[in-house]
């Protein structure tokens, strides 16, 4: 989405100045920041002097919801005499602060889907209007496995601006022209970073790449390209025995993007909305005729893994997983994608 500027520049911002910067940005942008509420951190709209935290592991919900909201009215219509249609497209300029490298990668994966053949204006408009300020991980969670997917938790050039925590300040790496312009607009907050700080940031970034507890060798996922070979693998039956068929893994996944579209009608007007749906639900593939091509948990759970590791790769050339670890952390029955890959490969 971003026009990358080959020349990366580095600045410093003191942690104590971040709130004041956010207050200033608030005047021109819709801001989304990580906020902790009921022991859950999520991206929420920032209000002047509002709460936010940049000391968090990761948000419960991935940022996909800021581009593909759980529910979104696409247009409203009125057919009293003539039919009139009003499209609902988000046009405001927005900034997301504190997006982790795995999650920013998930957005580039989603872009493939929403710009494919038919451009999805609802999603793309929001992507184009949104500036991303990334935040490096210094301490991955025990559930994380982004390194298995060749994502660098300490460095991210796909965001406009990337922050590395240097204890009392952040090293600000500016990746894009949009990022440059933002820094230029608020010169009072940023000072030029010296070689020392850049080196220190590199030192902080490198240990982040180690210490993963789970994961896989990316080469091991190649077996998934042989669909015929693994379509009837016994692992699907085994997973289906304990899978509860809830939507946690798909809703919390940063790359799962399936949705349903519904019209809601009253007398002379109505609206069309879309909302998240999950391949783990029976109703997802249930046809009007009553036939369901994925009638049981086995077919449904296989679909989720095959979509991520096989079908998506065939179509877009990349795995639809970023190793954020949310599914692993929250699955009530501990279904673990890294173990599924291991089970199939080790045969």
């Amino acid at each position: 989405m971003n026009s990358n500027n080959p020349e990366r520049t580095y600045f410093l911002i003191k942690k104590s100045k971040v709130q004041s910067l956010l207050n200033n940005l608030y005047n021109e942008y819709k801001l989304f920041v990580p906020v902790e509420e009921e022991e859950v951190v999520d991206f929420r709209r920032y209000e002047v002097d509002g709460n936010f935290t940049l000391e968090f592991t990761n948000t419960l919900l991935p940022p996909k919801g800021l581009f593909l909201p759980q529910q979104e009215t696409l247009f409203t219509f009125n057919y009293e005499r003539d039919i009139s249609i009003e499209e609902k497209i988000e046009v405001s300029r927005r900034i997301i602060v504190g997006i982790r490298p795995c999650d920013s990668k998930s957005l580039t994966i989603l872009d493939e889907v929403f710009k494919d053949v038919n451009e999805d204006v609802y999603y793309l408009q929001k992507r184009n209007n949104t500036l991303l300020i990334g935040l490096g991980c210094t301490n991955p969670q025990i559930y994380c496995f982004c390194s298995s997917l060749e994502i660098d938790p300490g460095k991210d050039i796909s965001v406009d601006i990337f922050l590395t925590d240097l204890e009392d300040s952040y090293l600000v790496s500016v990746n894009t022209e949009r990022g440059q312009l933002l820094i230029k607009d608020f010169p009072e907050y940023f000072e030029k970073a010296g070689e020392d700080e850049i080196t220190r940031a590199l030192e902080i970034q490198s240990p982040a790449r180690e210490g993963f507890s789970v994961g896989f060798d990316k080469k091991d996922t190649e077996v998934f390209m042989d669909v015929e070979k693994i379509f009837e693998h016994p692992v699907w039956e085994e997973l289906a025995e304990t899978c509860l068929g809830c939507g946690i893994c798909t809703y919390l996944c940063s790359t799962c993007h399936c949705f349903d579209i519904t019209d809601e009608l009253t007398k002379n007007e109505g609206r069309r909305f879309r909302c998240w749906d999950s391949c783990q639900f029976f109703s997802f593939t249930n046809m009007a005729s009553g036939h369901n091509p994925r009638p049981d948990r086995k077919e449904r759970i296989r679909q989720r893994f095959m979509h991520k590791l096989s079908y998506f790769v065939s179509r877009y050339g990349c795995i639809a997983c970023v190793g954020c670890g949310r599914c692993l952390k929250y699955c009530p029955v501990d279904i673990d994608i890294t173990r599924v890959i291991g089970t199939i490969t080790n045969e």
Partner: protein
Amino acid sequence: MKNQSYVELTNILKQKIDRLLSEKIVDYMIVYEKGSLWFKTRPKMIRKQTDMEKVIWNRYCQFNLSTFLKSLSGKDENIGIIAKKCDLGSIVELIKNNQIKKENLYILQVACDGVINWQKLENLLGTKVAKAIEVEEDSPNLVIKMPERNIEVLKNDCLPDKCLICDFQPSPYANDFLTIVDEKIEDIKEIKSQPLPNLEPLDNMSYEERLGYWLKHFSRCMRCYACRNVCPVCYCSTCMFDGQEGLWISKESKTSDNYVYHLTRAFHVATLCVECGECQRVCPVNIPLMKLNSKLAKEISDTFGYQAGLLIDDLSPFKTYCQEDPDEFK
């Protein structure tokens, strides 16, 4: 229970299950196996004796396995299941409500003196439990071994509410009760009688405050339906919220629709809910669902003197007629 006791219990468990499978007393056994991370376990169905190595029993076996008994009607298999005292309650409800036949079931109750609630432990430690290496019991404390140091916390502070009122005694409905002779095991027979802080804050709230409280929580719900699917007594073969013909609530997860979903579910499982707490435990957005379920259970207990999960022959007040039932509509 010491880690060593869990190891010994696991060994006895394996022997018992081996016998159950080899003598064809059960077709398969619902057990726990080790999870991906050391402090997790996962449910597992064992059909072959060669899978026996996977069986495990430890203080992380929180999951109520009886939820896997609810969708079996029509299948004529003999099933063995590992159950904690608390899980026996929902098994009783499933038998009582004709979801499974007692004669098809072999219940292997295992000695338990409480499972660990990670959230409570994390709140106590102020740090991610994932950072710990191991947990050992030094009654009445738990010793959390961290990379740099050990932290001791009172075990009772880390237990789910249900463990605080559990007597951990053998259930009359268990086919077998598995325990080891150990002084520490004797301790678990001591009945704890801590008052549950669960309801008090809400009962003291005004109607408006309570409404606000629930609206705030339900606004976070994303309708993943994990609470419903994990619930052992949510056994309808087609849920009214999954219906294809006409929707009772919108597919959008708006607060008002979420409200209808959660209240309907709470009323549907009232008289069935044994307060196992699984719905609240699996909720990714931390909705305190047990406050709702416990409140209804208390109302039913106060009104009808009925408690779910105790006796198979004790029918639900919603399914029986009794002249002495209070009639408040007069």
